[in-house]
């Protein structure tokens, strides 16, 4: 391949600028290979977060030509001709260069009420493949936080962050809600405090998911339906009172996860 201009944002919380690097990509190389070559040759202090370089850990999230991508899964030859701009994820505060402070996500993770199964019978739980598959789709999540980055509810409105868990955690709530063994009821929480209602289903999150999880169709919309059932439908409300009793009695029988 011919030389490519990599236009990389360099700076920190106090400000920064684009710096151009000319590189000649080899066959098959991904954006992260190019960043590594720049580090090893001309800019050893170019900050970039990465781990596996195989699309499995979700560390190297950034915006390539303005699109949220994993740098390790973006091949140079698939990008349009011309300079390639590389910027950090916009939704999170800058640490340095391409590295952002993603602690927002870890705070949201702490707020998820724990999985609460009934006591395990001798020899383990019995579950069927078709029942675990829904949850398994969401558990493919590699926590790259690209869905959080692209979600306009927090991308464009910093003040929403306090009350909005974001797509990554909506699939976590959906996973627990659909888990065959879980007895906790998080529907009120996800609506009242986690901001599920702010999502207006634009599907941006689904589009950027490197794991191709159907975030909107399989998690957010079903979650919204379940919450609406619980919140507003009087018949369902009554049903829920009864169902909850069942859930509660199951929960009472369950061993509380320790401590």
């Amino acid at each position, binding site marked *: 391949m011919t030389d490519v201009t990599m236009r990389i944002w360099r700076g920190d919380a106090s400000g920064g600028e684009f710096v151009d690097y000319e590189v000649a990509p080899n066959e098959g190389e991904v954006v992260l290979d190019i960043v590594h070559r720049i580090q090893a040759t001309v800019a050893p202090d170019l900050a*970039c977060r990465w*781990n596996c370089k195989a699309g499995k850990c*979700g560390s190297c999230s950034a915006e390539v030509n303005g699109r949220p991508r994993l740098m390790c899964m973006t091949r140079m030859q698939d990008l349009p001709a011309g300079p390639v701009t590389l910027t950090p994820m916009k939704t999170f505060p800058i640490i340095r260069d391409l*590295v952002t402070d*993603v602690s927002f996500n870890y705070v949201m993770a702490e707020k998820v009420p724990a999985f609460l199964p009934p006591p395990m019978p001798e020899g*383990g739980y019995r579950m069927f493949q078709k029942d675990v598959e829904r949850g398994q789709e969401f558990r493919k*999540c590699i926590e790259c936080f690209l869905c959080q980055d692209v979600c306009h509810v927090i991308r464009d409105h910093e003040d929403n962050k306090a009350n909005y868990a974001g797509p990554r955690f909506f699939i976590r709530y959906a996973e627990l809600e659909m888990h065959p063994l879980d007895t906790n009821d998080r529907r009120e929480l996800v609506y009242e405090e986690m901001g599920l209602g702010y999502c207006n289903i634009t599907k941006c999150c689904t589009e950027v998911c490197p794991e191709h999880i159907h975030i909107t169709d399989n998690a957010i919309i079903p979650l919204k339906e379940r919450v609406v059932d619980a919140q507003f439908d009087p018949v369902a409300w009554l049903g829920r009172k009864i169902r909850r009793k069942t859930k509660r009695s199951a929960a009472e029988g369950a061993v509380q996860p320790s401590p």
Partner: protein
Amino acid sequence: MTDYEQHDYDVLIIGAGGAGLRAAIEAEQRGLKVGIVTKSLLGKAHTVMAEGGIAAAMGNVYPEDNWKVHFRDTMRGGKMLNNYRMAELHAKESPERVLELEQWGALFDRTKDGKILQRDFGGHRYARLAHVGDRTGLELIRTLQQKVVSMGTDVFMECKVLQLVHDADGRVAGCVAYWRATGEFVTFRAKAVIVATGGTGRSWMFTTNSWEGTGDGHAMCLWAGAQLIDMECIQFHPTGMVWPLSVRGLLVTESVRGDGGVLRNAEGKRFMFDYVADMFRAETADSEEEADKWYDDHSAGRRPPELLPRDEVARAINTEVKAGRGTAHGGVFLDIASRRSPEFIKRRLPSMYHQFMELAGVDITREPMEIGPTCHYIMGGVKVDADSAATRTAGLFAAGEVAAGLHGANRLGGNSLSDLLVFGRRAGVGAADYIESRQGDSEFDTGEVDRAIHEALDPFERATGENPYDVQHDLQEMMQADVGIIRTASEIDEAIVQLESLSDRVKHLSVKGGRAYNPGWNLATDLPAMLSVCKCVAIGARERKESRGGHTREDFPKADAHYGSINFAHSSDTGTWDGPITTEESPLLAIPDEFRALLEEAT
């Protein structure tokens, strides 16, 4: 004296992969104050890349499976260099550790009657690996991570530990570290420290390991007074990607072979039948027809030779390529496309399908994969007590890849994730028990802290000098060439000379920029550990004048009974990264007769 932040814990755990997180859960449940330090973000540790599954003799698919068979498979796979007690505990306890994960929210693939499904893997007599498609490591780490978060354990992310610190009585009493985000230093004081830092594959050119695998934990334990054993035993995984070059070394899961994939050379020959060692002949099929019957019914035929232990398969591939029967890019073909339906492949191996499609432009449901051996795992590591994970240094425990013993000279696939769970938990128990009996307050040796900080900052003092990336690159190239899959005395001797000159270059590193999130500096602080660990690998490789498991000597191609009865144990004379290393023969734990009988049982 430098200013630094300080934290106090009962148990400090270094590393947030499977072993570290499992240890944390156990120590928390004992009511201790637990802190976890990780040099990455939580949930990104190398465990996440494990694909195939967790080996545990649950007997869900083959009821005749039990701990005794798992024990036997592990010992034979390890070429009997294992610590038998670790292999026993591992085989007995792993089923319980897997079931426990479902109490914490894991969702494994299921059998028709709703139990956890188990798949076939190399060296395991029965289908034994609990799994979730080909992303089992992700399931394991996410489950443990969510459990740890729900317990409220303190996790210090992107914090790199430089070295352990002792108290006045010589006990390990904590560590000194720095925050990657700011470059500021921090110390953690603790009554017990559990090192669970994983491996050291990053010292080789072609590796499945992430940047994290720099042997930090091996080195810090060595410097703190613990011994390292079996360091020459390095696992080269038979199937890494070979093309394009940018992804060379990337792991292709053994599940491809467990699920029916076969190896062919460039002439189209299924060559593994030519490489069945005597030790495995009785249990391995001798025709394609017999091997193919086995996948559906293990009583209809013997195992396909593609599912021999990894060391056997890696050596066979290496030989085929050297004999000129390799592919254009120096590998061989791994073919599942001609043997299983596209639907089956996409359901069982979704990550592999995407990995090849997106990174190589290869559709594995239609074409074979090009693969070759890649540095994957170190069987060697910190010598520990099997039951408690304690090292010989008071207050210091080790578990997971950083510890040695369980896998002997070669690890079976699937035995790593179960190792993390079984011995991660045991390290938590061991540390908690130790704290209960421990007496007296510990005075932190601030001299050690100051020296570590001074050394870490040294590269900033030099305006010109060696680029850490160049030194790392040269180390990787040298280890790949001279202490790789096939070794010989002259090359190992050359490696030992080269390691000395690389050490000199490390003393002249120069780093540009500031301390805040500076990867060049971060690498400069990894290099002393990499050099220390590579020296032990090279010395072990020189001393073990035989071929066994993950250590193959061209000049000593056979196994030797004497070497089969000892480990080489390394200790640091000075506790410094560039100081001399003493290596001695250390006898293996004697195997009691009743366990020996299990090993010799016919198939």
